[in-house]
């Protein structure tokens, strides 16, 4: 497996090998599926949306609808305005969404299609909406694409004249429906009314009913997005996925946001709940304190299996930072933190986090990295554990490293999108998975006489 990956590291400036990111449009598509009765629309060649729907379906094991402007060579030369107009007409005629959320592609961006003008000039039925965002594939990653689409909804729809209300906006970042479900539970327990944007629960973790619904009962409503303009404030979770929406809401409606890390592990969940407590004026309920206690109890009980074991963590920037924080709390020693998404901020945040636990010495934190490089690092300095997306399975097999799947995407296991990674509950599940991976390996590798029944 991956036998051609040499141990010697040569600097690469142009060649990406085994990437750790994909392009903006798929993130935009995912975000748009979190708005109720919304048809995501890809303004480009139909191959893009075919790949994106395929990719999302492989992760969620759920339908992921989206349409395309189906550019041909002619449209690529003469502009895609006509294709977008007929798309919008056909989509409303046949699929009847309430809103179409258009995102661009490298194709339409390279030819300079002006989406603002197209949408302004096109005929849209009275009770329907068309919004857009720009997501050229040669900028950012799927994470920034998600951020841009959420910001796009706000720019078009959030209403600064909306009546002031007691709700807070919550931008959950690039997470699974399972995480959003958990966020809602925490917000509910803290007694804080909220508007979640986007909200893919019920859409990408829909129940089996025997009836297919193109628009399941899930997603943020258009009215809720409008009402964001009158929200008390917003919580933007995950700096990399949620800063853009926070800025958009400030610019459009003057609503302030608090940007926080995704609440992974103890300390970050503590900060999150204290922020909710401060906003709501409600104390953190005993139920959550007990949950926290169970987590810490587990961490202490299983400490011998975590302590000082080295690990590598890769995936999306907010997720990797969250996983690293939990790993440090467990006593693991993260040696490599890698994301494919570009941005120096990741390297700063990651180094600061490791530094705050005295774990920076010799560790590497890399933005705009790839799995080939991570593999070479691990060849030079083996680790005890690998944490990341399904794309790590080749590396885990090649280097015989225990592997815990977490993040986006998980293509080769079931049920991951249901499970939260955030909050104390998420941390408990992750800690169990990590301990299982390490201990299963000990059982597998030890001599017969060393096999322990009780551990």
């Amino acid at each position, binding site marked *: 497996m991956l036998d051609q990956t040499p141990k010697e590291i040569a600097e690469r400036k142009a060649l990406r090998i085994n990437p750790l990111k994909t392009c903006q449009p798929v993130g935009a598509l995912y975000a748009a599926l979190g708005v109720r009765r919304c048809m995501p629309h890809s303004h480009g060649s139909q191959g893009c949306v075919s790949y994106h729907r395929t990719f999302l379906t492989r992760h969620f094991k759920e339908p992921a609808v989206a349409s395309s402007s189906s550019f041909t060579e002619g449209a690529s030369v003469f502009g895609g305005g006509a294709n977008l107009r007929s798309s919008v007409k056909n989509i409303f005629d046949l699929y009847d969404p309430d809103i179409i959320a258009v995102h661009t592609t*490298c194709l339409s961006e390279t030819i300079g299609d002006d989406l603002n003008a197209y949408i302004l000039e096109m005929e849209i039925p009275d009770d329907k909406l068309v919004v857009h965002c720009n997501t050229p*594939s*040669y900028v950012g990653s799927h994470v920034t694409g998600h951020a841009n689409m959420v910001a796009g909804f706000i720019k078009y729809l959030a209403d600064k004249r909306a009546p002031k209300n007691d709700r807070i906006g919550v931008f959950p970042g690039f997470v699974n429906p399972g995480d959003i479900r958990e966020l809602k539970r925490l917000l509910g327990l803290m007694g804080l009314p909220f508007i979640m944007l986007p909200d893919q629960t019920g859409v990408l973790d829909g129940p089996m009913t*025997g009836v297919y619904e193109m628009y399941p009962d899930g997603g943020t409503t258009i009215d809720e997005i409008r009402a964001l303009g009158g929200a008390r404030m917003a919580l933007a979770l995950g700096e990399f996925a949620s800063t853009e929406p926070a800025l958009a809401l400030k610019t459009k409606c003057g609503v302030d946001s608090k940007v926080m890390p995704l609440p992974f592990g103890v300390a970050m969940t503590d900060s999150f709940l204290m922020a909710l407590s401060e906003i709501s004026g409600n104390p953190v309920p005993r139920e959550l304190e007990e949950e926290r206690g169970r987590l810490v109890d587990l961490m202490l009980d299983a400490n011998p299996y975590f302590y000082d074991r080295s690990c590598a963590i890769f995936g999306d920037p907010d997720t990797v930072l969250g996983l690293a924080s939990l790993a440090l709390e467990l006593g693991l020693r993260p040696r490599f933190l890698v994301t494919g998404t570009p941005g120096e901020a990741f390297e700063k945040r990651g180094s600061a986090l490791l530094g705050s636990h005295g774990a920076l010495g010799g560790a590497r934190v890399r933005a705009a990295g790839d799995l080939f490089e991570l593999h070479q690092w691990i060849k030079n300095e083996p680790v005890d554990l690998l944490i990341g997306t399904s794309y790590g399975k080749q590396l885990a097999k090649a280097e015989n490293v225990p592997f815990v799947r977490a993040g986006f995407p998980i293509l080769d296991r079931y049920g991951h999108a249901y499970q939260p990674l955030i909050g104390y509950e998420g941390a408990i599940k992750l800690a169990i998975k990590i301990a299982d991976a390490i201990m299963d390996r000990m059982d597998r590798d030890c001599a017969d006489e060393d096999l322990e029944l009780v551990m």
Partner: protein
Amino acid sequence: MAEVKNEILAKYKAKVFKGRKDHILEVDRSKEQVIAANARAIPGIMTNRGCCYAGCKGVVLGPLKDTLVLTHGPIGCGFYSWGTRRNKARSGPDGSNYVQYCFSTDMQEPDIVFGGDKKLKKAIEEGYAIFKPKRIMICSTCPVGLIGDDIHAVAAWAESEFGITCVAFSCEGYKGVSQSAGHHIANNGLMKRIIGTDDSDYPARYKVNLLGEYNIGGDGWETERILKKIGYSVVAVFTGDGALSDIARSHKADLNLVQCHRSINYVAEMMKSAFGTNWLKVNFIGLKAIAQTLRNIAEFFGESQVKERTEEVLEEEMAAISGDLGYYRERLSGRKAAIFVGGSRSHHYQDLLRDFGVTTVLAGYEFGHRDDYEGRRVIPDIKEDADSKNIENLVIDKDIRYRAILSPERAEELRATIGLENYEGMIKDMEDGTYVVDDLNHYETEAFVKFLKPDIFFSGIKDKYVIQKAGVLSRQLHSYDYSGPYSGFRGSLIFGQDLTMGLYAPAWKLIKAPWAAREGGEPLAPKGGEEDHA
């Protein structure tokens, strides 16, 4: 039955109606039926189709294991086509296997503004320094064509700089109307630059190439096992578990076996023109189809020992599976299936389903042409449109190595008896009253499920869960739902097992909670789910 088509079309407004009506037909074999195919998808209508790049890099070039296939473009295209198509490849003796890797120039905004060819060159330098590949294939994505990067000049530079074979493919996603354009572009590149470039001796008898076999789930390996057991030598496979080093000497073969007609018929035709290599449409999916295929190949070589060995192998292989076959047949017989896959499988799998007593009530191709439906005889009548004109049709001259192994009379005879160099298309094998739909879309899938009530719907990942949510078993025929192989004798059993497993899944019976009032009408579970699993 004609009202099904009308009812489905009735939901379309004028323009879409006009665009779709000729893509749907109810089979009536007493007539010469014409279907519209290989036409533009309608903007906004959820097609299952992909793009030219997906056909070129994803389908034809991606499976090559001895070749560094470099995607020139922003990251997405290379990323999505990495490791997702199940074109299995065993590593070479030195552990080399490029299929495990994804290579991309990951173009950034400055590359789009100032041109990406410098980055492409640099990426090739870096890739060469690390991997020392003998062959690099460059595949371009949408923006590359628009900004005018000359990838062919870069390929020529790489050849002289590193002494390697480097071929560029201008397979930008917007070209053509589907993956099909990409197949053609890939076929052209292989023909122009690879096939026939290794003239070293190939001392073997009964030499064949296997064309249009991408080794999904290991199909190619099962097919090769059978061919080798009879005594054939497989010179090259295009391109599953394939190597350009084999394809370079594929002109040494006596016969090209064409499995996927759509994606590779260009190479078959071009090799016929250049080298005189005969080709034969084969099908290794379905037991009766395999038997017919093997007898046809034996007939081509014409020697009694090959024919006898073929019969021996058929008997031996069938004996090995007949018990299990009966078990699955009993559980599957009488069911109805719908099939919507890419280019040729929608036809192939009808043969296999028939072996299990399953009838196909709907079949369609995602990116087929009229000849895939109606047979090659219609090729001269197919009108070129703006989209197909943009894909180069190579004019192939006779190579000096041209050799005809059949006499003109024998060739003529074989055309009549085994369908040499012909493919009669899917429609002729379908029952009257069944449906053929080209470029079946999301809405039509939902509608046909409702009207035809198939027990099982074979399709791809994008619509799998649409169908499953509606309470109908859906199995992917692009990826076999990560199972397989489905080809050959052993594959047929795995297919039967997978279908049975799907239909008899206990969870079908659990969909409705006991306290929920059952809505009248529709049965909730496929037929199998309501019986006990024996």
